[in-house]
């Protein structure tokens, strides 16, 4: 059973009551909320995600609710609650859906230590994964959104999980967050794509979410062997360029994007060094999305 099998009324009712349990990759999330924007966002963006029975063990228990103070009515706020605690200050109610997404990201990297977590996107083609670590502003999400509309499978947009035992990337297949101009770029690049939960005036400007392709969601339990590590950088002028990165240089650069590496101890060091051993690493600059995707496709062809 999937989330889209519920009528909107039933979805609203379940979320407002004991909550809904749905699967995203290796995790089951239990979500409770009465907030209309979250209900709607979930219905549109997570429609293909498997729904699980109430008796199932949930990895994360999340609720988004109104405060019990005056801020429930006056300039209403929303509180993100995880396992009974509220780790963040409240946000304006209009930002409830992005709060759910970023809150869930935080909950995953606060709790999960049986995977190496890299702050990166990952996509798969021909049985191999490309990992795209990138600081904000690099255009990583735009590139990811473009790739998944041209034959690449979405593994993840924000958190790349690498299994400590198998060294494979384990997908989450969650919606991709697009910011500011990226929203229009992707709308034009892939007119059939579904972009929802648009919020203005967040800390990062205007934010919206791209629904993951049904096939990526259907294959959320299929891990992928990593093959490439690519640092993308969007540049509005200039030609496409790329250069190979040395492995030690890659390790040093990757250090900033490693969420839980230091906690893993020597197992983390051994995993990361042997992973980089098997990756082709590049820096990559592009100004045209189509050209960038063609370059990625050539990587697969030459493999």
């Amino acid at each position, binding site marked *: 059973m999937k989330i889209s099998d519920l009528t909107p009324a039933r979805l609203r009712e379940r979320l407002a009551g004991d909550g809904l349990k749905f699967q995203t990759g290796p995790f*089951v999330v239990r979500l409770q909320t009465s907030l209309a924007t979250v209900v709607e966002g979930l219905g549109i963006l997570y429609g293909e995600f498997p729904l699980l029975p109430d008796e*199932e063990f*949930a990895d994360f228990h999340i609720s988004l609710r109104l405060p019990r103070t005056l801020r429930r009515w006056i300039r209403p706020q929303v509180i993100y609650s995880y396992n009974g605690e509220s780790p963040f200050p409240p946000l304006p109610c209009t930002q409830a859906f992005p709060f759910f997404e970023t809150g869930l990201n935080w909950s995953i990297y606060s709790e999960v*230590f049986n995977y190496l977590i890299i702050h990166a996107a990952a996509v798969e083609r021909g049985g191999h994964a490309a990992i795209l670590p990138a600081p904000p502003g690099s255009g990583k999400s735009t590139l990811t959104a473009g790739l998944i509309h041209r034959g690449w499978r979405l593994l993840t947009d924000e958190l790349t999980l690498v299994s400590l035992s198998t060294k494979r990337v384990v997908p989450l297949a969650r919606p991709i967050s697009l910011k500011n101009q990226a929203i229009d770029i992707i709308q034009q690049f892939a007119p059939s794509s579904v972009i929802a939960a648009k919020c203005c005036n967040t800390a990062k400007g205007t934010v919206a979410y791209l629904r993951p392709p049904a096939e990526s969601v259907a294959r959320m339990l299929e891990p992928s062997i990593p093959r490439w590590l690519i640092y993308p950088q969007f540049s509005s002028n200039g030609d496409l360029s790329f250069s190979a990165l040395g492995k030690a240089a890659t390790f040093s650069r990757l250090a900033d994007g490693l969420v839980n590496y230091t*906690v*893993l101890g020597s197992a983390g060091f051994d995993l990361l060094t042997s992973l980089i051993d098997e990756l082709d690493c590049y820096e990559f600059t592009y100004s045209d999305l189509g050209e960038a995707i063609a370059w990625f496709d050539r990587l697969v062809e030459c493999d």
Partner: protein
Amino acid sequence: MDYSNDLLIRALMAPSQLSNYGSLQWDTLIRQGKRNGLLGRIQVLMKEHQSFSGVPSRVLAHLESARIIAENEQRVMRWEINRICRALEDIEAPVVLLKGAAYVMLELPVARGRFSSDVDILVPKVSIANVEKALIDHGWRHIKVDDYDQFFYRRWSHELPPLQHRDRGTIVDVHHTILPPTGRLHPDPEKLLAASMPLTGTKFSVLAPADMVLHSAAHAFQDGDLTRGLRDVVDMDDLLSHFSATYSSFWEQLAYRADELELSRPLYYALRYSKFYLQTPVPACVSEHSKAWRPAWPASYLMDAIVDRVITAGPWDKDLILKISRRLLYARAHWLRMRPHLLIPHLLRKALRRYRAEGVA
């Protein structure tokens, strides 16, 4: 749905039964374990009792994560102790490791699966300034830089303001006694230091076994507000069980030292709640003897009631009784730390600072 901590307490008492738990029970237990800082301990107990079979794989993943976190905390603590040793190389005074740091270095059962990496040390008061300087010379920094905080700690407290290492971010608390001098009980630090035992191969010492138990009791029941009450009781059960099995005259020594260090009252609570919740094998004669340290009614009754509510409350309980109980314990902790003529100006000052900060925001 039973959300109280009963499920967690039952798990601690009977870890071999955990392989029979269903998904919903795990759904509650994993969360309770995390909220009480005890999931690492649950994982260790399951390993010791080989009760992983039949446990759902996603549950095992949480237990594995808890194991990794607990091992990392131990590594961080050991390294911190190594670096403190290096920084205090030229200090000639005794430096006693307290609480978690001692448990880890002695590899006591209480250290198993524990999540804690702050280091607490006890040094003679006359050496405090030298120790502080040595730590600062090696990269530690004061994190409470407000003049009032600095004044408060140095004038009234049993410890320096916490020091944080500039690169590692780890905290060391330097104590010159184990309870605030402004409080009602005054365990003599000279006696603690005199009875301390050297830790072979290091420059550090640790408290004698009875003193270690008394410090834990004082920390939980005299200086603390039991925010992690169940974990405090688990620690106490571990310490009492281990030392009583290791040293034949442990109970006599414990009673003797409790009198000598004025810590009978917190010991009373520690023995009482450890025996009640975790069935620590406290000999009947010791329990009888400890009744002499009990507070008068209604204080004893009230304490039993509010401690029970706080220890057994589930992490998501929000009832009024629980809120009142927590507030009472918080107030009690402050009351015991400071006499009224000091407490009132201190609380006013804290409230004013908070008000100013919110005003600015």
